[in-house]
């Protein structure tokens, strides 16, 4: 994973953007036992061009970097975000996202004469922080709303990016097992486990 995945992302050649919604949800004809199915990110998305893929990968890594545990690229988050942008977002949300990504790319190029992914970490974070400052009053940040909603359609690009990155990261196999803790078959319940200061949450199963 990691480096190889990153290069793989960059290696996919695409001839422009496809705006087709490719539904992945199960129809009656496509029934599979999900636990034995491939991961959602097993497919290679081919929606973004190479430059966009590179920048997106580095954006996700800047949000959820590799530390002593794996980061966004290790966890396949660039793939997840690309798939979601083109297969899950609405047309309006997608154009907001892609517009935001393209704007970030051209502004970075204009200011730094370099693509985003070649900037130092400090500069990369600063760019995101500026975007977040500008987005500061979005309803996306409302306390307590995170668990109750599907998506905020008119949230600024940086919010969309963060949401998809964080969701993709903590629901990925790598994120669940190596950053959070995962136990598919606990076999018992114990409500008195001690929690040390550095312990991670359980990756609790979705509905």
């Amino acid at each position, binding site marked *: 994973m990691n480096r190889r995945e990153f290069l793989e992302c960059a290696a996919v050649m695409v001839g422009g953007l496809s705006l087709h919604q490719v539904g992945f949800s199960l129809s009656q004809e496509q029934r599979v036992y999900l636990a034995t199915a491939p991961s959602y990110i097993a497919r290679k998305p081919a929606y973004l061009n190479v430059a966009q893929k590179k920048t997106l990968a580095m954006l996700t890594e800047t949000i959820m970097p590799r530390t002593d545990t794996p980061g966004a690229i290790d966890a396949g988050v660039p793939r997840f975000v690309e798939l979601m942008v083109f297969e899950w977002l609405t047309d309006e949300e997608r154009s907001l996202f892609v517009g935001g990504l393209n704007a970030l790319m051209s502004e970075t190029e204009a200011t730094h004469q370099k693509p985003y992914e070649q900037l130092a970490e400090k500069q990369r974070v600063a760019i995101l922080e500026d975007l977040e400052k500008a987005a500061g009053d979005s309803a996306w940040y409302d306390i307590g709303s*995170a668990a109750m909603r599907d998506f905020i359609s008119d949230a600024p690009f940086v919010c969309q990016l963060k949401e998809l990155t964080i969701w993709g990261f903590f629901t990925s196999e790598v994120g669940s097992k190596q950053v959070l803790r995962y136990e598919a078959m606990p076999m018992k319940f114990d409500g008195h486990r001690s929690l040390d200061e550095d312990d991670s949450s359980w990756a609790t199963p979705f509905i």
Partner: protein
Amino acid sequence: MLHTANYDFDAIVVGSGITGGWAAKELTEKGLKVLVLERGKDLQHSVDYLGEHAPDWKLPYQGKRPRELYREEYPVQSKSYAFSEATRHFFNNDKENPYVRDEDKPFDWIRANVVGGRSLLWGRQTYRWSEQDFQANAQDGHGIPWPIGYSDLAPWYSYVEKFIGVSGEALGLDELPDSEFLPPMGMHKIEETIKGRLKNKAPDLKMTMGRVAILTEDHNGRAACHYCGPCHRGCSTGSYFSSQSSTLPAARATGNLTLRPNSVVEKLIFDPATKKISEVRVIDSQSGERHAFRARIVFCCASTVGSTQLLLQSASEHFPHGLGNRSGALGHYLMDHALGMAALGFFLDDMDSYYFGNRPNGTYIPRFRNLAGKPASDDFLRGYGFQANVIRMDWRTGFNQKGFGAGLKDSLRKPGPWVWALSAFAECLPDSRNRLYLHPTKKDRFGIPQVAFDAAWRDNEHRLWGDAVSQADRIMKAAGAVFSIKQESIEAPMGAGIHEMGTARMGNDPQQAVLNAYNQVHDVPNLFVTDGACMTSSSCVNPSLTYMALTARACDYAVKQMQAGLV
């Protein structure tokens, strides 16, 4: 072309959900040849639990909901707490099988569409009704008196509980009679902390482990819970009770069961000469073929709405207002529990305590208002209970915070404060104005009239909710919440509690009730309705256990009547 086939069944059961499964089991075990008709798709236990044990990274969109699909095809079903891509194949498709939903006065009808019905999807909370529940109508004059009391049902509660397996703690309370219990599940340390505080600061309350039809030890050939978490995806080990895991296999084992999925019952044919149901007319949802089946007795277990819809569409010259509807009560007195989060509190206690295993259960605070023999409120009738759930906040509840990089990652990977949510389950008065009916012009794809609803929360439900919220606030303070939020009004429309009840109520007086004390239609001796439609009042506890006990009791009665040559 009408195919007449297999008229030699002893009994026909319409529906394979929680009561249909019980009717199938009881009647086949008593030696009857039984045909179960299920309008939904066939589903094999375990094999078709497509979402079972699937990790998040294998779910479509890693768990994000496909919004357009849900909006277009599952606008009502997708409101259910149990609805996701891991469970969607159990649910009805709202577009394929619509009902008339008045946006200004909505009723949410959550429906399964598979063999096993909503027994696959239920919340599994299992509580006996109390004597006070059965006396409520007679005492305050709302609705009509129940034709039975607690003592009539108590042995049947025991009978059912011993089979399904109910875990919980015996408390010896009149207001919440004990079941035949398997050991209760354990509490989180924070729940024990809260319970200890309530004991001191709110001694009028009891807090106990949720009573659930989930096994805490191996039981009747089914394995103890393995605490994977989301029961409603289906459970191959049968650790929670469903028709699929328990009653249908028992019925199948007798060799007396014929189960026919994709069978939409169109009409029950009443023969005025014999005063009995002579035929059950069925449309095969796959082939469109029509069939007629005959049996000595018929059990309607098609769910509250489904059974009453069937009786209404079985109107005839003899019963112009719906089969067995001499009383005019059919379709009326629709109830549900006013159910939802009343208060949510944050706790900074026991932060160094965590858990292992996903306990599919919460804690329970039984009704403590307007109890028999204690001072009654002037403000509202009847009462409510609280079901409480604790979660530890994590990235899912806090991902929308500011910041980027290692700091954000580290903060999101660690647990946040404890959150304790109190959900109120308030009793709903039987009210003639709350009703379902057949729409005069709208039909479904089989040409069957669509169901429409005219139902809303009334004054007493709003008053109960108001009291529940102020009590929830008191409980949060006593429990030691550092911060809490209240839900001041009933948020969900009727139906959203998925405890719809009534519309073919039981009662001794045929002029007022559709069913007698044994769930037998007053004017049609070979027809029984044992699902939620039979309910004369609603109590404030989850109703499924009572439906099961009533079904087993009605089966016992029906077979004795057959043996005596009376049916």
